[in-house]
């Protein structure tokens, strides 16, 4: 590619966006930090519990980690697990499991997928977040947009206008409803087909309104902590994949982060999407997507609007529009050298 060309993907973005690879990278990232003796990797009580890096549900890749899964499953046989095909999106092929026998039955029916030679498709199985935060009795997840202009040094921006996607049906954990995907999956592509789907709001509530609701009903401190934790888990998911990403200077990419908040206001990273839907389901959705695209273009280009690989990728505040800086390692590094004392306090957030 020429110096004046730019492209909206990183070549191996699947390290972040494929469900199995994301899990693998995060597990490796934690181990690496632990080996370094980094305080971030501090463990809590119980095996496998990280105090600060425990932001994805316990997950295994099937068939490869089957034995590890069974071991974990036996520790709490009453919990529910969710199976997702690694390579599919928009809620396709997802189902819930609450008995080991059901998994075995599925594996028989799926013509022995435990032999990797016979099937190409692998699954991830994750502990199902069965205590999601409900608003008006309904479950929701967050769709946030994160723009990366460089992985090494890491430069990431969070779009302030994300939204919550609500299930159309009341949340219900009873066994009978286990197969009702309208209760459990928040994907718009799933919910759209529900009888209760409303095309005027599309089940979408803005993140600003979520914040207003939480601050009013739960208080400011816990709400701020929640949003800080969300930024935290995004930043560390990115740091986990940064070493393996092909960091081409021509590239930028906008990812769709899916996050579920549980009823203790802890955010869980569910998955990261490479080409988040830019079609719109409602009028406000259209305005939001329009702003998103407009802001991305203004942020990834130098002020003269012509792509240039030699540009330092430090956009002005105005160019960022509705994006806010999550992390810029280069700026942080400069800052550290210039003001070694200030660095300690401002960067402490990520320590």
């Amino acid at each position, binding site marked *: 590619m020429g110096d004046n060309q730019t492209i909206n993907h990183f070549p191996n973005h699947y390290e972040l966006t494929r469900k199995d690879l994301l899990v693998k990278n995060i597990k490796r990232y934690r181990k690496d930090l632990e080996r370094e003796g980094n305080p971030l990797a501090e463990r809590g009580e119980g095996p496998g519990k990280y105090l600060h890096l425990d932001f994805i549900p316990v997950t295994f890749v099937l068939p490869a980690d089957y034995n590890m899964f069974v071991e974990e499953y036996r520790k709490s046989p009453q919990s529910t697990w969710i199976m997702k095909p690694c390579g599919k999106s928009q809620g396709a092929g997802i189902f819930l499991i609450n008995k080991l026998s059901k998994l075995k039955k599925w594996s028989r029916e799926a013509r022995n997928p435990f032999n990797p030679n016979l099937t190409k498709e692998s699954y991830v199985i994750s502990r199902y977040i069965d205590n999601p935060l409900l608003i008006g009795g309904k479950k929701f997840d967050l769709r946030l947009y994160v723009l990366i202009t460089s992985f090494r040094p890491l430069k990431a921006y969070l779009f302030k206008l994300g939204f919550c996607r609500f299930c159309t049906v009341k949340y219900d954990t009873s066994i009978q409803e286990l197969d009702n995907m309208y209760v459990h999956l928040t994907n718009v592509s799933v919910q759209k087909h529900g009888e209760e789907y409303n095309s005027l709001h599309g089940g979408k509530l803005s993140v600003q309104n979520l914040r207003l609701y939480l601050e*009013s009903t739960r208080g400011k401190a816990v709400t701020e902590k929640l949003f800080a934790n969300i930024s935290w888990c995004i930043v560390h998911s990115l740091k986990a994949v940064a070493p393996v990403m092909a960091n081409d200077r021509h590239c930028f990419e906008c990812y769709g982060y899916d996050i579920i908040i549980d009823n203790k206001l802890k955010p869980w990273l569910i998955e990261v999407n490479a080409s988040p839907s830019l079609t719109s389901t409602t009028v406000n959705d259209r305005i939001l997507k329009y702003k998103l695209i407009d802001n991305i273009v203004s942020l990834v280009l130098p002020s003269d609007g012509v792509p240039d690989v030699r540009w330092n990728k430090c956009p002005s505040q105005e160019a960022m529009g509705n994006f806010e800086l999550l992390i810029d390692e280069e700026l942080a590094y400069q800052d550290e050298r210039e003001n070694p004392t200030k660095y300690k306090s401002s960067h402490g957030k990520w320590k």
Partner: protein
Amino acid sequence: MEKEKLAAEQRASGGRAKKAKNSCQEVRDEEEQVTTAVASDRAQQLQGMAEKLSLEIQGMSNYKQLYSEIQRIVASSAVKKDDFKNTLLEALKREGLETELRNTVFHWMRSQRLDKPKEQANVYGADLSYLKKAQMQWERRIQKSLNSMCNELNIPLARLRSAADRDELAEKWNELSTCDFDLGQYRPLFAPKDFLEVLFSLRDPTFKKQPNELNWEFSHIQIKVKTLAQLRDAYEELSRGEPLLGVNGNVASSLGHCPNLEAERIHLGEKVLKANQAPVAQEFLKRGCPRALRGRLWSLVLGSVVRDADADYYDELKAMVLQYDLMVDKLIIKDVQLTASNDDQYFVFEDLLYKTMLSFSRDSEVLPSVTRDKCAGGQVIHAVLQGKPATLENTLVFPPSGVIPFHGFTMYATPFCYLYDDPCAIYFTFRAFYLRYWFRLHTVSSHEQGIVAVCLCFERLLQCHEPELWAHFRNLHIPPVKVVFKWLMRGFSGHLPPEQLLYLWDLVLAYDSLEIVALLAATILSFRKDNLMQVNTVHNVEAVLADLSSIKVMPLLQLSLLRD
């Protein structure tokens, strides 16, 4: 420093708070009389007032609880027989009951102020009885269309609910959106535009119509409304240019230990809540309320803090919904569906709103406030239960609240869903707010807080301060009120984003007035003047004003109130 601030806030609440304090003293003295039967000199002077107060307080909803609390204290060992007066007062103070008494007197005084419109509202000495007549006609029209809808659909106004129906409703009370109501044939009885037509047709019978006079001005209606200069005096905190929350929370704080204004407001707000004094809370709201404190502060100002008895009462309302099948139920459900369910800011609260609005229709405590109001038409429908003899016990006021819902009625309740998790808290604060303000926005009256006065205030502001815009509208034959009426009638609910709406309602509560709604409407038009001047049809005017998502209420209002 910060004590001074709080004191200043207390001082600023001025005469009202002081009066409340004095009245509290009276109540205390009066309590003393009741218990000791010894009339001091002071109490004698104030006896008339005190007797009135004690009578009034007995009629208030929290009296029972207050009385039993005081009894408990009197009986406790903290109160000594040999020094009854001092020990009782000491104990009342310690237990926070003194504050409760003060707040009760405050709520009573507030209710007095609204019930008796100030004489100056009718400063021209005009005969405004035609407004009352118009309201009575309007009520009759609504009742007529209610009856004809019943006839058309062949359903009664009221009947006992069938057992099957009752069980289903009871089971799904928390998720009424899953019930399959067949509402295809129901439509709202009226919409804001129908009501506006009623207002446009108001005519002062003694007023001669000029040959070239347009048919839509309110200016001939002789209700006194404030001018911008008077609004500036009334909304002094805004016009003085004091830093407000909702303008910029990051400006420096005047308190040394607070990093910014937002932190300062939170700090002060928490102190106000701790003091538990309603007048101080009302004063506090004037400079914008921090999100996390708003729910509690509003309840305190409105006296709608939920007590055990209230929770029981709320359950009784539910029982009433289950017992009777009223025709308005369908209209209520339809309205929630048409408004909140389709609104991307409120759809998540759909189920909460069904409960709230259905319970509200059964609330007979609402009835006296909306019918006994001097300005109301005061007509109610009596419905006989279907299939029962027309005896007194089979007759009920329809609906028990006396309020017949219209298109958008639900929007008076929606914003409260952002404030509270507890349906009971939503209910009582919504009810208090409605009874104090919103019911005046859908009834024709000469009240200084009524919709006619609000429209008139808007009209005068626009005419005086945006004459160009006024002329532009006039040339296009578009009544300016017409394009803002839906905002006014709903107090902007559903039009402004929730956060901004709550700031506006903070001010309604803080200054205890709906004038701010008229001012905001005029200010938005003024703010969008350049765009409005470029369009020539109603349709395009409405398009310019359709999206209020970028409006920031506090800065805009402060800008319009700041003195030049």
